[in-house]
């Protein structure tokens, strides 16, 4: 066994080495390179959980290799052999106890952050609202405060909480920008809120994370985080130069297909709310007050 486990370990070491030498640069491990407070909280939790589970996992694996090496059935093995020893209250209390303590600690952090992440990362009077609709197979972003819309990219100001209100006018998808924070589903007939915030300017890749058919693999989008001024300039420019999104244009967007990045200076009034109502929202009794930021 020691011989074989050695070989096994060498393989893993070789693998790890390969990754370091040829593979990916650390920044490409996006979940561990958060660019905002939400992703940072989640990253902290991930490391906490890794540390806590290691308390059990590492000794278990080590113990297994030790036991197998020590108690092999060999003619000259003089290790103790107690075939009838099968109960020990003390030992059992220890290993019911340790996991309970670990899970207790982890559960506390989990519940705390679960509640925290449903609130804006920072207290501000006017967060930016972006309404997101997943379509087959593209993303539509609407800015109710500015009356503009984009497809497959969105701009957000740095340092200001953004509430993404999510829905879908197609089979459900999931809105995920790993460097800004975890994902949330876009579901027909529902409006769901995801708080994100970028602390550093940059371009962050987002993608649809829930399978939605043929074009699903191509449902990526850019999230461009810029300073407040630049953001306002960008919105004004789109307002002045881009074409409007007409009802007809929206119908074309909804049709199945892949789309390049697009910008629109306006969109049909109440488009987002109507979509939700049409898709089943009208049958649901749930609270639609998160749509209250509409200012068109």
């Amino acid at each position: 066994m020691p011989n074989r486990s050695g070989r096994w370990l060498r393989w893993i070491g070789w693998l790890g080495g390969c990754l370091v030498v040829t593979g990916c640069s650390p920044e490409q491990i996006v979940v561990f390179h958060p660019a905002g407070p939400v992703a940072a909280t989640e990253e902290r939790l991930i490391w906490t959980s890794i540390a806590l589970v290691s308390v059990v996992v590492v000794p278990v694996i080590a113990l297994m290799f030790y036991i197998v090496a020590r108690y092999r059935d060999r003619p000259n093995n003089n290790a103790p052999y107690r075939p009838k020893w099968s109960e020990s209250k003390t030992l059992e209390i220890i290993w019911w106890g340790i996991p309970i303590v670990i899970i207790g600690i982890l559960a506390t952090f989990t519940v705390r952050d679960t509640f925290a992440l449903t609130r804006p990362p920072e207290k501000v009077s006017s967060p930016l609202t972006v309404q997101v609709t997943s379509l087959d197979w593209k993303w539509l972003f609407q800015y109710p405060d500015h009356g503009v819309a984009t497809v497959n990219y969105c701009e957000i100001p740095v340092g200001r909480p953004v509430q993404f209100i999510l829905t879908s006018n197609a089979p459900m998808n999931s809105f995920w920008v790993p460097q800004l924070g975890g994902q949330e589903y876009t579901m027909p007939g529902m409006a769901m809120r995801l708080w994100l915030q970028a602390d550093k300017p940059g371009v962050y890749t987002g993608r649809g994370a829930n399978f939605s058919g043929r074009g699903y693999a191509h449902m990526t989008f850019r999230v461009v985080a810029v300073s407040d001024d630049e953001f306002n300039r960008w919105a004004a420019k789109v307002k002045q130069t881009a074409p409007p999104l007409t009802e007809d244009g929206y119908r074309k967007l909804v049709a199945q297909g892949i789309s390049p990045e697009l910008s629109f200076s306006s969109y049909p009034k109440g488009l987002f709310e109507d979509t939700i109502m049409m898709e089943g929202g009208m049958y649901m009794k749930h609270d639609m007050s998160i749509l209250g930021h509409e200012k068109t």
Partner: protein
Amino acid sequence: MPVGVQNYTTHFFVTGDPLIYGVDVSIILVSLAIVYVLTRYRKWGWLWREWLTTVDHKRIGIMYLIAALLMLFRGGVDGLLMRTQLAWPNMHFLEAEHYNQIFTTHGTIMILFMAMPFIFAMFNIAVPLQIGARDVAFPYLNAISFWLFFFGALLFNHSFVIGGSPDAGWTSYPPLADLPFNPGPGENYYLLGLQISGIGSIATGINFFVTILKMRAPGMTLMRMPLFCWSVLAACIIIIFAFPVLTVALALLLIDRIAGAHFFTMFDGGNPMMFVNMFWIWGHPEVYIVVLPAFGIFSEVVATFSRKRIFGYSSMVASMLAIAVISYFTWVHHFFTMGAGPGVNSFFAVATMIIAIPTGVKVFNWLMTMFQGRIRITTPMLWTLGFIPNFAIGGATGVMLSVAPADYQYHNSYFLIAHFHQVLIGGTVYGMLAGMYYWWPKMFGFKLDERLGKWAFWFFNIGFYVCFLPQYLVGFMGMTRRVYIYPPGLGWEIPNLISTIGAYLMGVGFILIVADVVYSIRYGERDLTGDPWDGRTLEWSLSSPPPHYNFARIPRVDSRDAWWEMKQRRQRGEPMEEPEPLRPIHMPKNSGVPFILCVAFFVAGFGFVFNWYVFSVIGLLTVAICLFHRSFDYDTDYYIPVEELEHHEAALGRT
């Protein structure tokens, strides 16, 4: 050509893909070969009498095992095709449509048509022998269960060449799986294949639940049962409560698709979320259904090959029952990100973490069973030892996934993929392979070759880590599941390439297992004692393979590890009790009706898939006739006379 005929030729058979033509040709060739061999050696009668009509749990177990290995092959090939497509960025080995079908059939087959029959194979092979019974409680129903599974799987697999495979993922979420977004028969195949085999699964759950509670040998109290039987009992409890939910969910979605209802549709008041909830109310307990029996097998194997009693028996039983109950309170962790409130998410996060506690305890107990034992590294033990680090890591990543806010980053990423493959392969597949190697001599009378078996293990085990560890990494790099293509420059290419290499190593491992079986049929060590591993439980007290009535005399049990204690007593030279005189044995008669009944289910299912209701009506009528026939059939059993028993026992060298 008339339009109807044209549609038939272009849509009924799947066309246009060289891979599928290749499969067409091989299906035809294999079928011809089977027909030829059966005819040439006049084996049709043998096939019908000995196998298709059997109600013997041992034979049904063997048929489950063969089916599971075939499906492991099909699902494995699906997996290799996917890994080949993902080996490098911008590959064009498969296109989106094809890839989507392959990951759908891969998942469905591996869970429903590989893991389920594999555990049922072990149930059938070991449970009656371990509790000292002559068969299961309802042998006829047992045959129906098998054939329902078989024809459900057969129906599902037809989709590859006729009509087109389902492509909405093994989870089959509406609205994507509903008619407007998914026309064609593929999704119907999924719904009906699962439905038909699901009825069989519920019946198996009930059957073994009753068998374990009512058919134990005298003296075998519940707390003297082998742990494998306890694990089956726990799994059966989950089956009985979980599978009906799947049945309902599939039925409603089918009604949506073929009758235009709106249970889960996007428009007209349907609620897709309801399907997601129902699917996982079954789906999460389902993973415990397939992993608990593996825990049972590991418990048997560890004790046998450490030559020591299992450590903490009561604790093991308590933890399995705890898992069976808590498994119902975790389903929402499959969709933390679907907008449930923080209260709901917290509840399900904590419940999920709690289930890790009894699971962890089991690992410690297995370690302590080996501690101060005498460990023999045989193939079944090797799979068990391979399981422990695997499951420790898989369990740890499971706890990480249960941390709801962190799950927002893992959900639908390759981190998740790596996790559930690690627990389902490392847990269920390793467990079933351990069980297969362990009970193989009992089923067939010869051992599988140890040398080839060890090669197979090392290829598979090393391949496993090479395949799935990089997937954890690529998940952190933002790669989502079910993408058929990805661009270069994201750092995903190297981990994906390594992962593909690992997948092929596992493929080599599988081929070596098959080679081991083929080699051992001819050259494997014959088991003449019936107890090749120096076992502890009652199945090893019988000859290998056991006679069709299992026990000539029902054993009396007065402790755990009943067979081990008997051997100890014999060794100490304690006087043996005078054996009771043989009595005639009451046995169930073979019947062809279960087979016909399930063919009828297949025909009805095929009718529903293509909306050809004539077939459905004919099929369902035949089902009704079969049920009616059984209700009034009083000639279902017989007695084996004592002379015949004496003759059999003498032939086996036993008195």
